[in-house]
């Protein structure tokens, strides 16, 4: 009798535990208690303001841990694998297909469906969050790539500072005119040793010309497409005619911004974060234009972060509540006030950079921006020694055949995709 009672109690205890877990997993449960959030150190500027606003207006609390940017993927991956990860994570959108495919993220399809504004969330973000028909993250912050140009240098070189180039040929002409000024001036600068920079800065040239670098489903690489050839040859001309700053060949992303800030560079492709840097600097009168295609057309890389709930989250109720709140007007306005491009296409015009028309170009670029989808993005694109970075480095700065460099990279990238 006593034994039976003990067993029953134990079973009840177990049942209660199980019930608890199910309750916290439910989106409809009362969001109380504390959830943990991992963000990267380059988000330090705004992430605490955001959680502060949430914590003061909600019963549930969110606690932030800041992880170094360079090791976020590894740290989050290992933590998730061992079950010691956070409840919520802000993840660079290019890594979402990878994490979603490995089952470390919670299915947020139902959570996203509850949002009245779900259709006006950045399309590129929504696409990247989907794996096998389910949504694993909500759009959080946006970033878009554009061409920055130095208006003073344009004027000095006899170019119209209000008419930025609209094709490769016009960019070349502008670069040649600026180089002709002498005095260590260059037409263009890039980070030639950086894979992640060039999907952001170089790939839009390809897209604007109607080409692709990866198929829609990410199952096949298209590094050998003719549009990629054109863009590589365009950059090669910039380099071989001496129109590109010498640091371009070896920059792994650390110096191209400051090189443009020196005031001796005509054009550079960078993102929204750079508007703030330049504006705070007050040294350069700069313009912002969309990245152009071969004979016109424009495109942009839609970057930024998505916010996800981990599969092993302990406080899912608060986590669900927070990720929903992160996309609403209050949260997105806080982001916009801190110079982060919002992910709400319905709000971007009214809350982001309303006092500076240069921000408008970024807002528009975000709405139409694209992001390649791949579960092995890190290995084929972001690796500074991977196929994408190697192809660009060889084709632009090496003396060899452009098509041979493309073919080699195509083969290497496809091999990585096929190996999964």
């Amino acid at each position, binding site marked *: 009798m006593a034994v039976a009672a003990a067993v029953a109690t134990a079973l009840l205890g177990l049942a209660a535990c199980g019930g608890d877990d199910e309750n916290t997993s439910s989106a409809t449960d009362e969001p109380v208690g504390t959830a943990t959030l991992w963000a990267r150190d380059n988000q330090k500027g705004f992430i605490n303001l955001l959680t502060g606003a949430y914590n003061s207006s909600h019963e549930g609390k969110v606690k932030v841990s800041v992880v170094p940017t360079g090791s976020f993927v*590894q740290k989050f991956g290992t933590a998730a694998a061992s079950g010691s990860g956070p409840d919520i994570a802000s993840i660079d959108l290019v890594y979402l297909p990878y994490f979603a495919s490995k*089952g470390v993220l919670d299915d947020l399809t139902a959570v996203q469906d509850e949002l009245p504004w779900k259709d006006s969330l950045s399309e590129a973000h929504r696409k990247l969050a989907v794996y096998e028909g389910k949504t694993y993250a909500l759009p959080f912050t946006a970033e878009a790539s554009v061409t920055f140009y130095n208006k003073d240098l344009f004027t000095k070189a006899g170019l119209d500072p209000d008419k930025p180039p609209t094709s490769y040929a016009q960019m070349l002409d502008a670069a040649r005119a600026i180089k002709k000024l002498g005095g260590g001036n260059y037409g263009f600068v890039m980070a030639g040793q950086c894979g992640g920079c060039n999907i952001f800065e170089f790939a839009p040239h390809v897209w604007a010309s109607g080409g692709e670098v990866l198929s829609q489903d990410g199952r096949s690489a298209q590094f050998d497409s003719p549009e990629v050839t054109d863009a590589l040859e365009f950059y090669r001309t910039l380099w071989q005619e001496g129109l590109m700053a010498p640091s371009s*060949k*070896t920059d792994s992303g650390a110096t191209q911004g400051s090189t443009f800030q020196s005031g001796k560079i005509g054009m550079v492709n960078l993102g929204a974060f750079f508007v703030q840097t330049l504006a705070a600097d007050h040294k350069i009168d700069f313009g912002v234009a969309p990245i152009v295609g071969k004979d016109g057309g424009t495109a942009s890389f839609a970057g930024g972060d998505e916010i996800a709930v981990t599969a092993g989250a302990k406080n899912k109720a608060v986590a669900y509540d927070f990720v929903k709140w992160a996309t609403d007007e209050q949260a997105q306005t806080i982001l916009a006030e801190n110079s982060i491009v919002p992910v709400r296409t319905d709000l971007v015009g009214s809350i982001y950079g309303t006092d500076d028309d240069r921000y408008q170009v970024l807002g528009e670029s975000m709405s139409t921006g694209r992001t390649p989808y791949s579960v092995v993005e890190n*290995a084929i694109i972001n690796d500074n020694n*991977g196929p994408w970075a190697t192809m660009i480095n060889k084709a632009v700065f090496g003396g060899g055949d452009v098509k041979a460099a493309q073919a080699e990279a195509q083969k290497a990238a496809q091999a990585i995709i096929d190996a999964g």
Partner: protein
Amino acid sequence: MVTTLSPTPRTATARRRPTPWLTQRRRRQLAGLALVSPALLVVGIFFLIPLVMTFWMSLHDWPLLGEHRWVGLDNYTRALHDRNWLDSVMFTLKYTVFITPLLFVSGLALAVLVNRPGRPARVFQTVFFLPVVIGFAAAAYLWLYLAQPGIGPLSDLSVHAGLGTRESNWFSTSAGALVVVVLMVVWKVTGMQMILLLSGLQAIPAEITEAARIDGAGPWKSFVHIVLPLLRPTLALVLVFSVAGSLLAFDQFFIMTAGGPSNSTITAVYQIYRTSFINFDLGYGAALSAQLMIVLGAVSAVQMLLLRKTDFS
């Protein structure tokens, strides 16, 4: 008193006869074991267990996330045909062959220079040793800035020396990049080798060199025939350190060249890092690490053997 004491020796002798195992010798062995056990524990937890785990992982297809799967020796056979891996091994060997004599000669020269009494020698010894105190990554960033085209002071110096223009980018060729990295490493590591060799030099009894001088040996002859042979044990130590360090090179290339230009400066450890933490292929990375470890062990063993007999001379 007597009655209470008397049973004690009796039981003691009775006990000693059937179980004489706790002898003085055994007692000392046990005490010894107890004393080394903390060290054994540390070695076990931080060296042996990870070592075995690395080997275990190397026999699996082991992604960072997701299920792992037994593949036997597949990772090892894959490495034999992996162009990237073989290239990185070749580059590491090239770097090691290039830098070891440089480090050794400069370290020995500095040691001979500062091996004299007096305050000035101590000051120079300190100056030469200072770069050792800086972290490797910090030193790499420092030199990356120094050699940056357009803004680095080294490019300014080279203009004055007629070696190039303000805009020349030394990292743009693999030879140039290698030279800058090697200069940085020599600057950074020579001081350590100097101190080690200096302690070896100071251990040579003054009578021997004095006797050689009386026998008519000049400074060069006594250096070659007296100092160098007596220095051999220290040389072995310095060479093993230097070769092992060069074979494990990573941070200087990761920071200063990012493997470029066109992947021509990727070392073996860099390739292991890429495999494990960029491609998330931990199993294959572990197999590459195991191979590197075997090579490292073999190289050190050969060096030890070659230089060993002098320990008894």
